[in-house]
């Protein structure tokens, strides 16, 4: 039943992971402009909170490789890797993160509020918030008889929100095409999963809602691919929702500026040593027989795409300040069934 990833799928996943990592590195660098020596979150070309996804890339690519543009993703406050894996327009995404007029939302949203209707991607800033909308989008597809699976990404902290339990129950009662993906990076800002969560592994909670629960350990891209493939296939074929818990790693702080004093000594070094991208690169070279030169081409392409997106964002104009006052409501397009 479990399908193996093709070489083409593996290379796609690798390119998206590298693109995402290069993107986060660029954002981290630029984020600190204007914030040194005194860190003030309001300063610099990218103000505000910044939640980077370094280390969590396998969760994005291993799931999204199975999706089409028509499928729906609701992502979290740490959304860049998920957006990149969902093929969100990288230039307009970068511009939105910079708060520029050319951004996905013209600067109204920022990095926690990225919306790209072309690929059915949305994210939001509050833990567990995307669960309901994912269930609703899946309901919409089912009622309309249209194909499509909704993937709701959450962190492991979100399973202790009421929204998690309500959404899983509703999706199961209505047999909806949803896949709930927990990116378990073991930390809810500074509070460990062990201190916050009554069960050691959250995939067992699927039992409570009569759906399959998968657990993937060790941030393993191919194991994620396999679990997600099964869950998405089940959703597409009308089998209903699934829950996947992925043991992943947050290589950055919760947000830029987080000193991470709460981490045990040596934990971070251990995570860096298990960085999933070099591990996947080794797999491609040693087990998949991919040429080093092909990987370098991919890495160059990823870097170029990021450079181009960042340059676009930097060069784009700020929004007209008074535009802040428009766009509360949309013009109603039509009347009744003719709309």
């Amino acid at each position, binding site marked *: 039943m479990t399908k193996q990833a093709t070489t083409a799928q593996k290379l796609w996943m690798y390119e998206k992971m590298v693109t995402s990592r290069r993107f986060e590195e660029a954002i981290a660098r630029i984020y600190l402009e204007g914030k040194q020596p005194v860190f003030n979150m309001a300063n610099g070309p990218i103000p505000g909170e910044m939640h980077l996804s370094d280390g969590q890339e396998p969760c994005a690519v291993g799931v999204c490789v199975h999706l089409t543009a028509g499928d729906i993703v609701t992502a979290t406050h740490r959304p860049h890797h998920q957006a990149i894996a969902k093929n969100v327009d990288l230039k307009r995404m970068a511009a939105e993160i910079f708060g520029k007029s050319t951004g996905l939302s013209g600067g*109204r*949203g920022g990095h926690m509020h990225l919306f790209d209707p072309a690929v059915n991607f*949305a994210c939001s800033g509050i833990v567990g918030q995307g669960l309901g909308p994912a269930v*609703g989008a899946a309901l919409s597809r089912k009622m309309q008889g249209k194909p499509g699976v909704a993937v709701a990404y959450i962190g492991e902290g979100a399973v202790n929100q009421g929204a998690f339990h309500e959404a899983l*129950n509703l999706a199961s009662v209505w047999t909806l095409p949803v896949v709930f993906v927990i990116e378990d990076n073991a930390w809810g800002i500074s509070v460990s999963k062990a201190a916050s969560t009554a069960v050691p592994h959250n995939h067992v909670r699927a039992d409570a809602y009569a759906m399959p629960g998968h657990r993937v350990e060790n941030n393993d891209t191919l194991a994620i691919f396999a679990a997600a493939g099964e869950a998405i296939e089940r959703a597409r074929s009308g089998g209903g929702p699934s829950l996947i818990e992925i043991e992943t790693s947050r290589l950055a702080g919760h947000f830029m500026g987080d000193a991470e004093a709460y981490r045990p000594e040596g934990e971070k070094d251990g995570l860096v040593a298990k960085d999933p991208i070099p591990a996947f690169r080794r797999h491609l070279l040693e087990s998949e027989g991919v040429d080093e030169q092909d990987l370098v081409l991919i890495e160059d392409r990823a870097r170029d795409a990021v450079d181009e997106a960042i340059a676009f964002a930097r060069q784009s104009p700020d929004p007209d300040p008074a535009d802040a006052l428009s766009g509360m409501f949309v013009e*109603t397009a039509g009347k009744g069934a003719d709309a």
Partner: protein
Amino acid sequence: MTTEIKENERKLTIARAMAEALAQEMRIDPRVFVMGEDIGALGGVYGNTRGLIDEFGAERVRDTPISETAFVGAAVGAAQDGMRPVVELMFVDFFGVCFDAIYNLMAKNTYFSNGSFRVPMVLMTSTGGGYSDGGQHSQCLYGTFAHLPGMKVVAPSNAYDAKGLMTTALRDDNPVVYMYHKGLQGMGWLGTERGATVHVPSDPYEVEIGKAAIAREGSDLTIVSIGIGVHHALRAAAQLETEGVSAEVVDLRSLVPLDRDAIRASVAKTGRLIVVDEDYRSFGMSGEIIATVAEHDPAMLKAAPIRVAFPDVPIPFARVMERHCLPDADKIVAAWRTIQPGARS
């Protein structure tokens, strides 16, 4: 012998008018569906989905688990995906368990996405006290919803407006919060405000959201209200008329958008203003109405405006205590006496 009801005599309760608007729109627009607690076989606790499940089935008239966070959030997701969901929040008081989905998602996603995501949905919810249901089942909370940007907010005072506003809300591409007062629904067991049951045309029609109605014309005093407060105001106006005072009653019908022009036009004519609001007094609708006049031209006012609103306490259970707090016609007439100390008592 059959007795045919003439078209212009057909009167409906607000509950019936809401259900009729839903049914007529569901017939022509397959994207419209309803979900909420007890809206299927029961037809809604307040009767506003009565009969829908028989015509449209359980697929489009969905009883939900008691999971407001999930089903309001799901409505947002379905709306963004091209459906036009209607969700019922059984009591507006229950907003506390799902407000994140309402004000952070439903209300903000249009703006956050610069209009690339649309959220055409109707959140219908019951408001109001007066029947000793205690302080978690009796609130209005108009100001709470109207304060937060991104939601249109309507509250009909009669069945004609109830049908027209619902039809307009269902056709709007923006989220609309539709607040219906339990005391106006025409459910016998909740007490019935007879003035809310009025002639309702059979054919679909729209009532513009953001347009107030002059419920009664007058020249000495403007009474502005919404929902059940309009009926209190009309009774007060009838009493004042016997004393030779001509009161105009403005039925706002919508809080967002607010028809500020209608308020100002009436006060420009009368020079005196009483605002009647069953919601809490402070930081709410009543202050907003007064500011609408005062910011525009305080010289329009010949006397200080007065609020007849629910005091800033939770709604008490005991009948005498609740009645002490709720606006009614007598309190409006008493307010007039403070404006016109010389008026006959």
